[in-house]
């Protein structure tokens, strides 16, 4: 006994059945319509930035390699070894050992300075919390991100390395770009 759906039957509206030309358009023409998007992109040209010949310009506040600052006028280091950056660091990659300034050996203005200041770049996540935490703006993050090296121990940056002037090899985004 066949099932009689009764009033539940819905008549399906089908579009007009095209003839041969409509079918051809469907198969061939629609494909070309899709290809229009693809070919438009081809006409645009490649967007690949050819690194290392071309480099992506970075924003001014890009967080790259750290730099320990000095005072411009006196040349004294700004860092006093307070270790707040080490406390703030979520990756626990900063090691600070403080020492006392003596009149003969005055490294920073004030009572104390950092005798050991190391950042383990293999652990650093470049979040910038150290920069935020520093009360003296002694540690800032520059623009250099090209830090690859061959050995892990070379990637533990010491104070001397961080104090040094960084290599300016990262282009900065210009206004309006």
């Amino acid at each position, binding site marked *: 006994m066949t099932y009689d759906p009764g009033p539940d039957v819905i008549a399906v509206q089908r579009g007009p059945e095209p003839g041969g030309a409509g079918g051809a358009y469907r198969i061939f023409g629609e494909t070309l319509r899709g290809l229009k998007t693809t070919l438009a992109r081809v006409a645009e040209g490649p967007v690949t930035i050819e690194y290392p010949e071309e480099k992506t310009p970075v924003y001014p506040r890009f967080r790259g390699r750290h730099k320990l600052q000095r005072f411009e006028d006196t040349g004294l280091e700004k860092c*006093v*070894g*307070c*270790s*707040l950056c*080490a*406390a703030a660091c979520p990756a626990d990659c900063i090691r*600070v*050992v*403080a*020492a*006392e300034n003596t009149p003969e050996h005055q490294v920073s203005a*004030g*009572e*104390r300075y950092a005798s050991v200041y190391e950042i383990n770049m293999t652990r650093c996540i470049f979040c910038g919390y150290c920069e935020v935490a520093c*009360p*003296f703006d002694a540690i800032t993050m520059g623009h250099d991100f090209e830090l690859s090296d061959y050995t892990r121990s070379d990637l533990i940056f010491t104070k001397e390395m961080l104090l040094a002037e960084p290599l300016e090899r990262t282009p900065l985004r210009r206004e309006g770009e």
Partner: protein
Amino acid sequence: MSRPEEKFVSFDIDGREVRAPEGAMLVDGAKYGDVEIPVFCYEPKLGPPVGACRMCLVEIEGIPKLQTACSTPVKDGMVVITKSDRVQSAQNAVVEFLLVNHPLDCPVCDAGGECPLQDVAYGWGPGRSRFIEPKRHFKKPLELSPTVAIDRERCILCYRCVRYSQEIAEDHQLVLLERADHSFVGTHDGAPYVGPFSGNIIDLCPVGALTSVPYRFRARPWDVEEAGTVCTLCPSQCNVTLTVRDDNKVLRAFNRQNDEVDDGWLCDKGRFGYQTIHAADRVVHPMVRDGGTLRAVPWERALSEAVAGLRKAGAGTAALVGGEATNEEGFLLQRLLREVLGSSHVDSRPSGRLEGEHARVLARPDLSARVSDIDYADVVLVLDAEPVDEAAILDLRVRKAARRNGARVVVATSRPSSLDANAEAVVRFAPGASEAALAALGAALTGGAGLDDLARRAGAPAETVRAAASLLGAAESIVVLWGERLSHGARGPQGVAALLALMRSLDITGKEGSGLIEIPSSTNARGLREVGCLPNLGPGLVPTAGEGLAAADMPGAVGEDISALVLLQADPLRTHPDRQAWAAALDRATFVVAFTDFLGEGVLEQADVVFPAPSYAEKEGTITHPDGRLQRLRQSIGLVGEVRPQWGVLAELAAALEDKPVELLSSPMATEQMVAAVPFYAGVTLAEIGGRGVRWQDRDAASSLAAAELPDGALESPPELGDGLRLGTVLSLWTGKVTEHAPVLSFLAPQQRAELSADDARRLDLSPGDVVEVGFDGTRVRAVAALRDAVPPGSVFLVEGTRTDNATALTNGAPRTVEITRVPDAVAKGTSLPLAADAGAADASTSVAGSAEAPPA
């Protein structure tokens, strides 16, 4: 006063009902309800509150003005509000006011990260300060002393340090100068704040005004970890917390409050003595004498040489156990000697023989007081000991009992004591005549027969003895702090007998809260005794089959009965009487094995094998406090250099000598074996000891101590006093490795000095500061003459344990009379101890170099 009963009252705080002990201040009472009230000047350890900083203001229903919670005791039915707007605005106001003159030093301040001011300002402060005017300035930072730096700008004038100096340490040096916002803390005359307890103000200071000089800038709280253990530098065995960086360096030590042991304080020796752990000249490699000099060698070589030497000596081996050895180490050593080598010549006491019966009586639980009993005692009797030098933290405890609880102090010593000023009765007897003095006190208590004769033999005026006895006789509870030196010397047993007879006359066992507390001459003396490091007693104070030689008899027997010596963290040339005999003995001995952390004179010249000893920060084990409390040492840092645990080395030696494999594999195993061997420790586990310790007398196993009775018979008649200047010795707090190897304490290294009365000095034509020679016949010791009014005529005191001119050159266990002559054309010069780091030259003319003295009364 007797120990108060705890009664609880119930009061309402912030809408919740809380029960707290009656008489507690509201700040402490609130803690029972998990409510925190911020404080600065309130410190319960300092006694009565001041109410000066106004930080703890709270609202109490029924009182119109806000009240300081620190000075308001809780009462039944009190209603307290700590979280209303009024209270909050007062708290904000006080924080704002405190920050007005407080400098913005947090990044460079040592207290940063562990600063109560930071925490309170964050939790109860207004968030920002509106003060934009210039703050007041002081010269900073200054050294208040070589160990404490003061930064007056940071001071919030909470008075804690001043109250501490005036009322706890009672050295009356720190005061507040000027007034209002020019106030600052200092010493009256600007001199350094020097005293044996000066470091506690670092812990008390709620800001970074008082900081530790050796810890300056070393680490931040987030760089370090804290490890709790027990300090073994003196018999007080204070509980300390060591701050450790990178798991291998101890940066500082501070107190880990245990009211039953140290009451929350730490002496400077314990606080700054940690520097010896990392001293550059510490022995950290095993050494062997090769061609006349000691050379570092691998462990296998050192162990095999030691085994060979001990095997050859066999039963002719003698051992000295120093006070820093743990119970396990002492137990393993005496087992090595007794069971493996067949020798019973092991002694942990420097002098005198302790009878087995006496040892068991002294260990009786009913004759033994707890340290906290001192707080509530009616009378505290100090016998032949100087607490501030020998067990420093007990000195503070006695002062607290006298000041706050009205305890009466009776001092019976040969040398004037810093507690004389607090004492109600003082008996000053001649050096070496403690036996007679004890007998005299006993006689005075039991009717006075023979008192005059005994007092004469003691060299003490009879009226003083009578006065002391009447105080003691009328006391409800008595705690007796007796110095181990009572039991030293040839008449040691008679001294102990006199002490026990005195206890019988005082009916100590019948009085509550009364008993004896020994002040031993080395840290773990009690523990080592109880695990069997005595020639006549084995573990558990059980008599051994054969008796060995006591330390005093060992030098004479070297070459005959004894051919090898084992020194377990012991240096007989420093601590044992008759130095020359020991020096000769070490020379004569065919084989000397030393476990040590620094090369002392004897070891350097005579030891054949040197094993590096771990410091207390590297040890795992247990030690026993003089009042019977078993405490646990926990390893805080990794073993330095090639140091191996001593229990391990001893186990290896024993196994190698028996040609068996090593069975003892861990420190808890050693503890278990030790506990199993001592009947009255039975069942103690490391977990039970925990961080606070447990007194074995309070446990059920205590009943397995063999019963012993207080001696009943008549005492022997003490000897008559010799004519001439009688020699007494001082065990200074500062002799030993702490002043020689901890750079920050080097300025306290004692130089030998002879303390005389003014009469004797006049008679001998000596002035203070003269260089003199003290001695008899051919033996002389050089010293600087020092006059003290309080020294009775006829006595002279020399310091024991100094590096050069040690008084032990003149002592031999019997009372000694000496002559003093001035050395013409000699000028007292400063000590210049060659130290690993700094060469700290101490000035000999300052009286602080030497034992800690109270300011002249």
